[in-house]
């Protein structure tokens, strides 16, 4: 059974670990939507937030090709790290896959991609991670 890297950010919607939706919280006070969990509104501090499903498409706000990864990085090197702007407002930082480095441009459309990732090769550490790929 696939496990989400963080079920407050990514809800898996199938058994195969290849379908899922990003989650956020919307403030009933000011309307701000944040990516991932929040108990109180990050913007206005109100306590009334409701979970929302975020769209699977966004645009690339910025990017970098990481050549020296952080300790414990379980993926290939180099990898592309992208900050993606969602129509609902929040920005989501994640790896951009299936993309030639030379094709990266600010503003390019991207869509959600899910990949299983294991730490140190251990199967019990495998998690389904949200990533981006060119749309």
């Amino acid at each position: 059974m696939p496990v989400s890297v963080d079920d407050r950010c990514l809800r898996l919607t199938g058994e195969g670990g290849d379908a899922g939706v990003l989650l956020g919280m919307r403030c009933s006070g000011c309307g701000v939507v944040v990516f991932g969990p929040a108990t109180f509104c990050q913007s206005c501090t109100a306590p009334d937030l409701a979970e929302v499903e975020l769209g699977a498409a966004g645009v690339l706000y910025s990017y970098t090709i990481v050549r020296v990864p952080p300790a414990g990085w379980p993926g290939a090197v180099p990898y592309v790290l992208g900050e993606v702007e969602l129509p609902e407002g929040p920005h989501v930082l994640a790896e951009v896959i299936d993309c030639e480095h030379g094709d990266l441009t600010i503003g390019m459309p991207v869509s959600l991609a899910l990949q299983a990732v294991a730490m140190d090769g251990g199967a019990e550490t495998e998690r389904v991670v949200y990533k981006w790929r060119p749309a």
Partner: protein
Amino acid sequence: MTQFRAGREVMVVGVGLHPFGRFPEQSLSDLARDAVVEALRDSGIPWSAIPIAYFGHVYYHGMSVGETTLAQLGLTGVPIINVENACSSGSTAFWQAYWGITSGVFDAALAFGAEKVPGGPVTVTAENSPARYIGGDHMMAGYALRMTRYMSETGAPASALAQVTVKARQNAALNPYAHRKETYSVEDVLNSRLIADPLTLYQCCPTSEGAAAAVLCAADALDSFGVDRSRAIRIAAASLTSGSYNGRGSDHSAFSPYRTEPAGLQAYEMAGIGPEDVDIVQVHDAATIGELQQVEALHLLPYGEAWQATMEGRTSLTGDIPVNTDGGLLAMGHPFGASGIRMVHETVTQLRGEAGARQVDNPRVGVAQCSGAGDVTTVHILTK
């Protein structure tokens, strides 16, 4: 919103540094002790007369390192506070020392910081954080994302960013305390290996070891402590802000004014001066792009123009707005707990006219800005 209730005037009366670099033979406490002893000697106030001390550090070296460090100087029973506020831990310790005195509670204080930062990319989250699967917890990758935006929005060429390092190394070559003293050309900087495009190795501050200390004293208590008034430097403002919501969460924008601007504006208001009055500047240049962003957010140069000013030499020692006169994080290195107080050390040294070969021509107002994870910003304004 912060209410300023500054009371008594507070002065920096002593500063000390342990050189920045790598010192495998020395413990954190040894580094810190050396900086403290130098600051106390510089102030003329003995440790036995100091009523409170604040110690900034981040990495774990056992509990109560502030206490074990100062125990080497003798156990006097005064309160010793350990402060952790990421890369701004040292400047936060200094900020607390200021407020402890201006409020009237203490007549003097010691603020010091030290760090032995391990090599390799710096991460912010705990080891078991899901962030480790995402690949975004990487300090320099964050700067690279900002740099991509900045270059795209302003048209700044890579050579302009590289010039920030070239200048930092030129300043550090005149500073015996610096971790990196070799000078580089723009080509050297651009040809060093890529860490996270477009950021090359020489555009990232070294992780370092080192310590810094400052002794603060109420202006109305200088005589009772026997302090030399002619070398005392006034603290005109001390502000500290943590993150406010930017409307989108993860944010690596070209300018990010929400991060540094509020603390800067508070400091100018508190000091009763404007950016046009500033003669020298120390900012948080963990990467080249950081220097440009901080200088702009402090309104010392218009948004989007710091890269041009850098290329024109305006931020060098002989320019109209010298920035990071001691080499900054880029060349001094960045021992987290020490860096914020190192900036105070350099500002005081310049305002005293004691900076030797890197002395700026007669500065009267200096700004020291230090950032930390959690979008912490400290801004201190010192005046002659």
